[in-house]
């Protein structure tokens, strides 16, 4: 099955991925052992693509995003694998180079906008900071440009108001002079998005952007992200535990469990015909309007303790199609299915 993405081919003609993770592994040493938060994860993100990463809490999805930007909190570390952005490996880059990248080429928005915005600063200033850091609006030439650069300031304000209007914040001029706590949840998330987009990045990493919001606001934010993707061609990596959100928004989906990639493919085939038992379980959990009256059947068991994983497939204790081989192999290899899907399951 073929799906056309917004940007099918690069000017050069090849489908060169914008962002590619190759076998990324991020670990956290803990008292009880080494936790592999991200375990050999690989995927590709193309220009303008909308990728969704789904999983329960603790599946490693947020850490993946942090690893891309190399913001993994101490004592976590990226121990192997590569993160290739426009062909260059980010893991190998210096701290200074990473700083130039963050916010400008790859930007991130966080789950709870109330805690992600600094309560002590005006919203407009926080957006403006992104511009300042990356010198998006260069200093004007002139004798006093070191001290007060009115021209630059004016240009920055314009840009900030533009960005705010772009994300749908009403009356940008007044709103910019407000503090985060004076905004509603939805507005705060829009402001966060404005910060992220200020320097027009090519990739937007969204860590559960809708989780802390009401359902109606969720829809608005998703529409906003969609608009940004269409208008600016920004690739979006949307991390969430909510399959419904992914189904609505993304083109490609990755399912993660215990730090490993379980299934990957284009969204519609995966949703209609999930291959991995975990994905199937997740879809079964979603209540559907119009379907026959079935009981919602949750996946039995609990999220595994990442420091103490069972041998073989990490999902085996909870799997309904488990086979004896599942706990006997060292690791379950990824199988590529004829339609291009990837599944990590011994059933295939």
């Amino acid at each position: 099955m073929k799906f056309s993405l917004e940007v099918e081919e690069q000017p050069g003609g090849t489908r060169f991925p914008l962002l590619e993770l190759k076998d990324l592994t991020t670990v956290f040493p803990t008292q009880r052992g080494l936790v592999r938060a991200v375990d050999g994860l690989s995927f590709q993100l193309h220009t303008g693509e909308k990728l969704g990463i789904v999983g329960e809490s603790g599946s490693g999805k947020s850490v993946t995003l942090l690893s891309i930007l190399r913001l993994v909190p101490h004592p976590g570390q990226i121990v192997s694998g590569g993160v290739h952005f426009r062909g260059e490996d980010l893991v190998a880059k210096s701290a200074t180079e990473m700083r130039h990248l963050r916010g400008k080429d790859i930007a991130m928005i966080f789950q709870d906008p109330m805690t992600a915005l600094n309560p002590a600063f005006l919203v407009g200033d926080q957006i403006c900071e992104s511009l300042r850091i990356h010198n998006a609006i260069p200093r004007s030439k002139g004798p006093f440009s070191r001290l007060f650069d009115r021209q630059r300031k004016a240009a920055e304000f314009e840009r900030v108001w533009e960005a705010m209007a772009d994300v749908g914040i009403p009356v940008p001029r007044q709103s910019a002079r407000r503090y985060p706590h004076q905004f509603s949840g939805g507005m705060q998330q829009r402001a966060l998005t404005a910060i992220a987009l200020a320097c027009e990045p090519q990739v937007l990493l969204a860590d559960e952007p809708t989780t802390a919001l009401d359902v109606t606001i969720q829809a608005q934010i998703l529409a906003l992200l969609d608009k940004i993707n269409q208008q600016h061609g920004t690739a979006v990596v949307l991390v969430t535990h909510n399959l419904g959100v992914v189904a609505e928004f993304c083109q490609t989906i990755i399912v993660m469990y215990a730090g490993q990639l379980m299934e990957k493919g284009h969204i519609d085939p995966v949703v209609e015909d999930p291959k991995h038992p975990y994905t199937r379980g997740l879809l079964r959990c979603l209540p559907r309007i119009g379907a026959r009256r079935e009981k919602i059947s949750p996946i039995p068991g609990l999220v595994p303790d990442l420091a103490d994983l069972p041998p073989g497939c990490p999902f085996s204790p909870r799997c309904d199609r488990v086979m004896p081989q599942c706990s006997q192999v060292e690791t379950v290899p990824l199988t590529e299915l004829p339609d291009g899907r990837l599944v990590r399951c011994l059933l295939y």
Partner: protein
Amino acid sequence: MRAVKVLERLLATIPIMLGVAIVVFLFMRLTPGDPVDIMMGEAGYVSEGEIENLRREFNLDKPLHVQLYLFLAGVIRGDLGNSYTKHAPVSELIAERLPATLELALGALIFGLVVAMPIGIVSAVKQYSVVDRVSMAGAFLGISMPAFWLGIILMLLFSVRLQWLPVAGRIDYDASLQAVTGLHVLDSILTGNKAALISSLRHLALPSVSLGAAMAATVARILRSSMLEVLRQDYVTLARAKGLVEFLVVTKHALRNALIPTVTVVGLQVGVLLGGNMIVETVFGWPGLGRLVVQAIFSRDFPLVQGAVMVYAFTFVMANLIVDVLYTYLNPKITL
């Protein structure tokens, strides 16, 4: 707008100060024994007439509520009564000694903050490192140590044994310093008197450290714990995700929020500085208000003690007002 609110707060301190004055007045009346007898203690035989004169002079012959009224009226005018022993207006005596105390208090405050801020920040940023552990151990020691003992130990070490710093006093006897503000360090800078500057700094060193150590310890601890909490917040990660230099992440984003609870504690610590001031001045023979008060206590010079206590309380109230105003600048969620 803000200025109006500040003025409002200023006015709100008036009832507090009135209350303070009343409490202090009651203190004095608590004294067992007749104040006049105490005054006359050394004088030997005094005639009835003289006793009556004294009573009238100090209004002690009037009923209590009248005394209170007269006292309060005096306070509002700035008249704190007359000293029993020095036969001079209390306000004059206090004003005379105030610069010395102010200099010591400022010295301690500056020392305390200069030491506490970097330590608090670095300990939080590099948690569990050697710097952190050593600083926190030191801070713990600092809050368990009595200021007078620290002063004596420092004196023993630096003045007696090593002889690097002078033992007592504010400035070398022969340093001729022109007085502008009364603060020796400031005056020597203003008049370009290098010898006096060095001399006054050398004299200021040990007392400031003794007085400021406990405060530094407390502030360092609370700054560290606030920073630790703040550094865990999402907005700090966001600041990094924007590509901000780590130094600015810490100083611009994190510190700003961590200072909020810290500033409140600093305000309270000013009270400790004011109290410890008396002790440190006694230890180092510093000619300030604190030492004057202690001497006054022993000579039973109640108006002087009373006046000084009110001045201290007033300073404390003002300091906390400043802290409150500062707080609203730091925390936009709170308005005055």
